[in-house]
Structure formats: structure tokens, C-alpha cells
């Protein structure tokens, strides 16, 4: 079997944003309630419990944005830009290791 080509994103020290990243970001303003905010956003977005795909994480993130729970509008946009960039790579057929977080690969 041919060894997979090294991930471009890995070479750049990157990993796609995760739910944990979202919680960490929200904790700047929501503190210990950040996980609860995300749970509520999951419910509002109709996303069931369990690991989130990038598409599902975007739905949840947009629900968080709609709830006004991001620390700033810039932080919300930056998170969505980073998330959307990895989603785009995924949809373009980039290797899984390019766009999934290390824990998910």
C-alpha cells in the first residue's frame, strides 16, 4: 500500500476546529456555562448528541451565533471562516487527515 501523502494542513500545523474549540472560545464569556450553550445550540440546530461532523459543527456554530453567545462578532466570523475552509477542503476531496482533527482521524 502506498503511504499517504503528508497532509498539507498538517504541514501547516493546522487542524479543523472542533466542538471543544467552540466550547473553549465561548468560555471566554460564558465561563462554565459554555458547554451548556453548545448543548442548547445543538438542540436548536437539531443536531443529536455524539461526535460532530464539520457540517454539523457549522450548524451548531450558526445556532450559537444566532443566540448571540459568541464573545465578539469578529470571533464568530473567524471561527466560521476557519471551519468553512476545512469544510471546503473536505468537499473538494482533500485527504481526511487534511481536514479532520487529529483525534478524529
Amino acid at each position, binding site marked *: 500500500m502506498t503511504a499517504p501523502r503528508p497532509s*498539507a494542513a498538517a504541514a*501547516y500545523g493546522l487542524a479543523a476546529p472542533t466542538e471543544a474549540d467552540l466550547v473553549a472560545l465561548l468560555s471566554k464569556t460564558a465561563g462554565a456555562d459554555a458547554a451548556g450553550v453548545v448543548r442548547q445550540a445543538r438542540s436548536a440546530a437539531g443536531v443529536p448528541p455524539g461526535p460532530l461532523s464539520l457540517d454539523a459543527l457549522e450548524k451548531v456554530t450558526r445556532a450559537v451565533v444566532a443566540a448571540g453567545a459568541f464573545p465578539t462578532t469578529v470571533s464568530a*466570523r473567524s471561527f466560521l471562516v476557519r471551519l468553512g475552509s476545512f469544510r471546503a477542503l473536505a468537499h473538494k476531496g*482533500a485527504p481526511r487527515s487534511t481536514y479532520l482533527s487529529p483525534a478524529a482521524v
Partner: protein
Amino acid sequence: MSAHATLPARGPRAATPAAVEPSAALDAAVEAALHDQARLREIHDLGLLSEEVDAILQAEAREAAEHFGLPIGLVSVVLDDTQYFAAQHGLGDWLAEQRGTPVEWSFCRFAVATKEAFVVENAAEHALVRDNPLTEFEGIRCYAGIPMVSSRGHALGSFCVIGPTERSFSADDMAELRRRAARAVARIEARRAG
């Protein structure tokens, strides 16, 4: 020692950019510039992150692309974790929709960090960007960007043109791009006055 100390020393009137190569000094300069709080505050104060696309910057981006015969012109504002396209011409697909990328994918961050023009004639062979996802998956090959430095000395982002095929940029090309970047900066500075 300043992180910039080992970067190529170039005067503001240099016609063509020095080659920028990977180095610890460049990495340090990029990190320092990206997280420079005074720079980020100036970007915020100038309103460069507003949702409203500046029609004049948009025209500058389009006209630059057309002048160089390239498909893409950008006014890219470089933040600490993303780059944001304040104006763009020619981007398609998700890049146009999102108006940004992770900053680690940004060619423009090198212009911001060095406050010098950053030129890539063939991204597929350039040590700094050949593994960049935008090179690998979006097909960027040539890039020329001029740092947009405010009158207060902060590099806000880059005024750049981009294409899908290898090409070189002459001294005259870079002078023209500098003129256009200066107009974009003047437009941005006018927000402060306004």
C-alpha cells in the same frame, strides 16, 4: 534582537522584492505581527471588518486584476487567526462566500510580517507556500502582494493579485502594484478622517 533583524533589509523604494525564504526569524516575525495588539486595534478602529464591502476598494481590486491580466485581485486584512477579504475580485466558490481563510493559509501574512512585497512566481515550487492548501487544492500559482501600511506604521493587510499559472512580475509591475496599494491605503485611511 528584533525578530526582523535577520530578514532581508530592503528600503521602501526597492523595485523588486527580495526572495523570502523559510527561517526561524520569519516565523518569529509572522507571529509577532499577527498578534501585535496595536495593529489589530488599528484594523478594528478603521472599520475594516465591517460586513459592508467598500465599493471603491472593490473597484481597486478588480482594476488591479484586469491590469495584470490575472483573474483575482484582493484587499486582504490579516487578523491574528484569519485573513479577511475586505474587497475581492475573481474569487469563486467558497472563498467568495466566506471572504476569508485561516491565517496559516494566507500568502498575505508574509507581506504583513516583513512590510515588504511578497512575490510568488510559481507556488508549486516555492518553499513557503508549496504545501499551502490554497496551492494544493485551489490552484494558486502566482501571487504578488504589497503590504498595506497605515500612516501610523501598522501593516493592515495586503493588496494583491493572484493567478492560476506561473508568471513573473517585473520591477515596473511591482511599482504599479505599489501605486495601487497606496491608493487602497489612502481609501482606508479616509475612513479614519470620515
